[in-house]
């Protein structure tokens, strides 16, 4: 009974724990669980190249998206416009620290860290500079999976624009365009990253015994 099972020949479903033989997939194919229908493994097309390019573009768009004014209002002859960064400054200025923190975290910090992380990972894979620290790095990267809320913030912008349109004159600035592009880039870079491939490659390169120095 105590036979050692070669665990790398099997995969288990994350949602329902059903176990399968590991399928051999070509790029662009994905395997689904028979029991609950969730994705088992997915081999993405050109994962490293794509996530490198998307995250690089995302990081370049980051500054305009944060610093350019997103929209402005005119009311009774007065004009005022605000960018994402102003948003945080004003919130701190007026004493709403908690919302300022949340907006900063979910709409600025987490997306930037995720983009930078994806860029670093795909850079290391692209130029073959794999190091053992990547294991910890990629594990930490997964902690942020649920906490990027750029898409929610985008809907927030749309709703508040609609709201303001009702009784003020609204102007839309270049910041909005930059923000939308930033949103697209960060979503695409997260989608393009092929986790199974990266983990497989890291595992083959750094088997566990070698890292602890007893190989």
């Amino acid at each position, binding site marked *: 009974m105590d036979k050692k099972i070669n665990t790398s020949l099997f995969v*288990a479903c994350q949602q329902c*724990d*059903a176990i399968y033989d590991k399928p051999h997939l070509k790029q662009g194919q994905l395997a689904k669980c028979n029991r609950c229908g969730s994705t088992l493994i997915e081999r993405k097309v050109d994962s490293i190249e794509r996530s490198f390019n998307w995250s690089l573009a995302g990081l370049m768009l980051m500054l305009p998206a944060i610093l350019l004014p997103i929209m402005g209002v005119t009311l009774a002859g*007065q004009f005022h416009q605000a960018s994402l960064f102003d948003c945080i400054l004003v*919130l701190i200025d007026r004493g709403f620290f908690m919302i300022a923190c*949340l907006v900063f975290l979910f709409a600025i910090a987490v997306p930037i860290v995720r983009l930078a992380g994806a860029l670093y990972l795909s850079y290391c894979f692209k130029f073959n500079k794999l190091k053992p620290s990547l294991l910890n790095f990629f594990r930490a990267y997964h902690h942020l999976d649920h906490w990027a809320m750029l898409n929610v913030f985008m809907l927030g912008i749309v709703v508040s624009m609609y709201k303001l349109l009702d009784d003020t004159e609204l102007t839309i600035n270049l910041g909005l365009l930059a923000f939308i592009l930033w949103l697209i880039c960060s979503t695409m870079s997260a989608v393009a990253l092929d*986790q199974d491939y990266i983990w497989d490659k890291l595992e083959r390169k750094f088997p*566990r015994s070698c890292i602890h120095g007893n190989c």
Partner: protein
Amino acid sequence: MATAKDKGLALCPKCHKLNPATAEPVICARCHGKFYQRKRNSLQYTLAWNVAALLAFIPANLYPIMIVYQLGIGDEATILSGIGEFIEHGLYPIAIIIFTASIIVPLIKIIGLFVLVYKVHTGIRLKPDKHSKIYHILELLGPWSMLDVFVVALMVTVVELGFVTSVAAGPAINYFTITVIFTMFAANSFDPRLLWDKQTSESVKNSSNTLSEQKDRNDK
């Protein structure tokens, strides 16, 4: 259907590698993270976050969420009265979006997770395929209830015209964000595999029952 648990294997939640579950916590051979075969005390954690979220949801609805100052006179609005104002102004799409994002979604998440925890705990009428789909939807809905917070934050920033009009956030916004974050924690700490565990163990029990019944008949 065989599960990893039956074979004495555990799936790493971070890198999805199967490890032999020899001692808890398992240390993953690939990413060196510590983890448990099932999320530890999953039901208790989910229940606790859920109760906390439900408690925070009460002040979130009672206190004003946004205060609009026009010529120095403040006009307070709670989440519900804000939605009422939209309907009065005829802005139905926004009213529906805000109502869904800030009332229906958090409530559905809290109630849904309570139901899932109850079903897993008691095993009454548990349909894993259906319930795991429900869980999946609840997990996806999570961040969308932050919508109201972002809208208020944007309104505070953009509508800042000194004495003429300005918008301030009310205390409810803090409670509301707490609700949303706690429901996200609750959904994250729930382990959907528990839904399936119950079913497999019950089907095993049933099959063993039928076997023993057959044996009894044979004996007779």
